[in-house]
């Protein structure tokens, strides 16, 4: 077996396969590069536009790479617009959704795993069906109901409404998650004399921390992302989150592009935090 067999293209078989591997490798690298460029370009352009002096933005051909930086747009957004107010509103809405969704979904996930109910399968179907509901479908009738009970145009109303878009997903995640937590741990605590409730919050809860973190992140992210629901529920501009507030940079005569891009850039900061918190467990959130 000392002589090598000959492969196609006049190469030996080993050479041929090496070449083939190289070609595949080159194709994968190229595709990856294209995907990365496509993904990075919009945020790059956002950052570039927010930092360039206004005069350079109107250059033709465009200034692909920054030659001159300025922070004036950030300053004008922070100190002479309502943006800080919008930012605080976004934080309030996100924290509200965090509390509602994390508490309810963690409790429900535990209860649904540990206790027997009739109609459990149908309950699961109902949750998954709820997961499919888009915000626009919920918010139009919600506006009518919320108005009747007097919570439209309030933080509470918006928080409850936004929670609706995240609650089903998060209940589902916690339900799945607690199924991976063996009951025997809690049982041994109970054998040692702990009450069932204590076993839940001192054993089951700490063990399910990764699930809780994923759910909490998704809840906050839901609050941060919300556009359709606050757009319909919140009329008063003082209550608007960033997603709505950006509209205030569109004046009747002109659109303040660099300011909008600076505002969006600052709004992206928490998004990076969500990315950090979720990047290790994409499996958890892919329902």
């Amino acid at each position, binding site marked *: 077996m000392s002589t090598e067999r000959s492969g196609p293209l006049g190469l030996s078989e080993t050479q041929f396969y090496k070449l083939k591997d190289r070609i*595949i490798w080159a194709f*994968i*690298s190229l*595709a*990856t590069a294209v*995907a*990365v460029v496509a*993904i*990075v370009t*919009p*945020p790059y352009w956002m950052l570039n536009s927010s930092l360039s002096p206004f005069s350079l933005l109107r250059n033709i*051909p465009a200034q692909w790479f920054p030659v001159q930086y300025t922070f004036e747009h950030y300053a004008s957004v922070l100190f002479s617009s309502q943006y800080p107010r919008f930012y605080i509103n976004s934080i309030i809405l996100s924290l509200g959704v965090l509390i509602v969704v994390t508490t*309810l*979904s963690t*409790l429900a996930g*535990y*209860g*649904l795993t*540990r*206790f027997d109910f009739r109609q*459990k*399968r149908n309950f*699961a179907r*109902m949750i*998954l069906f*709820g997961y*499919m509901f*888009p915000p626009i*479908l919920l918010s*139009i*009738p*919600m506006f*009518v*109901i919320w108005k009747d009970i007097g919570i439209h145009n309030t933080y509470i109303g918006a928080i409850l409404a936004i*929670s*609706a878009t995240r*609650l089903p997903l998060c*209940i589902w995640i916690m339900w799945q998650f607690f*199924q991976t937590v063996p009951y025997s741990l809690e049982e*041994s*605590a109970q054998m040692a004399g*702990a*009450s069932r*409730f*204590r076993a*839940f919050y*001192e054993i089951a809860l*700490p063990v399910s921390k990764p699930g809780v973190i994923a759910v909490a992140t998704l809840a906050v*992210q839901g609050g941060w*992302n919300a*556009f*359709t629901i606050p757009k*319909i529920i919140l009329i008063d501009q003082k209550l608007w989150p960033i997603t709505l507030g*950006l509209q205030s940079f*569109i004046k009747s005569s002109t659109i303040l*592009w660099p300011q909008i891009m600076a505002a969006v850039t600052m709004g992206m900061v928490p998004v990076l935090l969500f*990315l950090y918190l*979720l990047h290790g467990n*994409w*499996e958890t959130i892919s329902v």
Partner: protein
Amino acid sequence: MASSTRDGVETVASKVVGQSRRESLEEFLSDRKIMAFITVVPATLMFALIVAAPIVWSVVASLHSINALSPAWEFVGLGNYVELIGETRFWESFGYNLVWAFSTSVLNTVLGTAVALLLNQNFRFKRILTPVMLFPYLVPSAFFGYIVMWITTQQWGLLNQLLIASGLITSENVVAWFTGDPWTAMATLVGVHNWKFSIFVAILVYAKLQGIPDDLYEAAIMSGATKYQQFRDITLPYIKNVLFITVLLRGLWNFNMFDLIWVATNGNPIDSLITLPVYAYKIGFQFQELGKSNAVATTLFVVLSVVGIIYFKTAKPSQEVRVE
């Protein structure tokens, strides 16, 4: 994990021995029925209030004529629906909406799967590139909408600038992405939509790909299977279900998309982008006809239910929970 849990058990045990009569409340909470009640009922009630009630309300409200500015409801029966069915605008929106939902979800799934397959390769810098490639999924649609709006600006937008730089167009005849031809507007938004929503598919498919046991591929390589054969006979069967689910879910959500369309077109979408959700918003909150707006919402709900039934009949997702 295991040792810390054991410590936990011991701490609990020691605490309990010391304070066995500490809280009768805790005892009360620990009753099997009570605990089942307090864990599941709040979520169920909330679920009923914020998910189920709006649907019922939507159906009821759609049978009334409601002016957003006055509290009076006037019963009109199926009047709103009759009115809608008679409108060309409604059917046009429906048609455009179907084209939009179909093209976006197919493209999302194809591109998303491609990204997932790339992420599943072993390349250098993977630890850095994975979060970069999954990042768009977490970007708020509204933020992305403003970026899209800026990039598609006629005079100084990045898209036109790139086309000019590559010599495809001249600066005299720049493309009007969202304000000219209706199909151009649709195609533009379908294209940029993928930046964020393909990644949703990528995340689901990527998670599934990582669950495929390595020895399957090893065995395939041993028996001389080509890359293509490996994909066809191992990868594809594994991700077939998740692909079906993503087409369905993305189709449904894209069908009901409002935020990106609204923001990217500056609240003034041309006809081809007035899909049913946008139409419902315009009727309800610009023309103040909430009853009719709810009739459109109910129509959307019917579409949702049809997709939901297909989903439950074919994918059987509820089998994933253990029911003893």
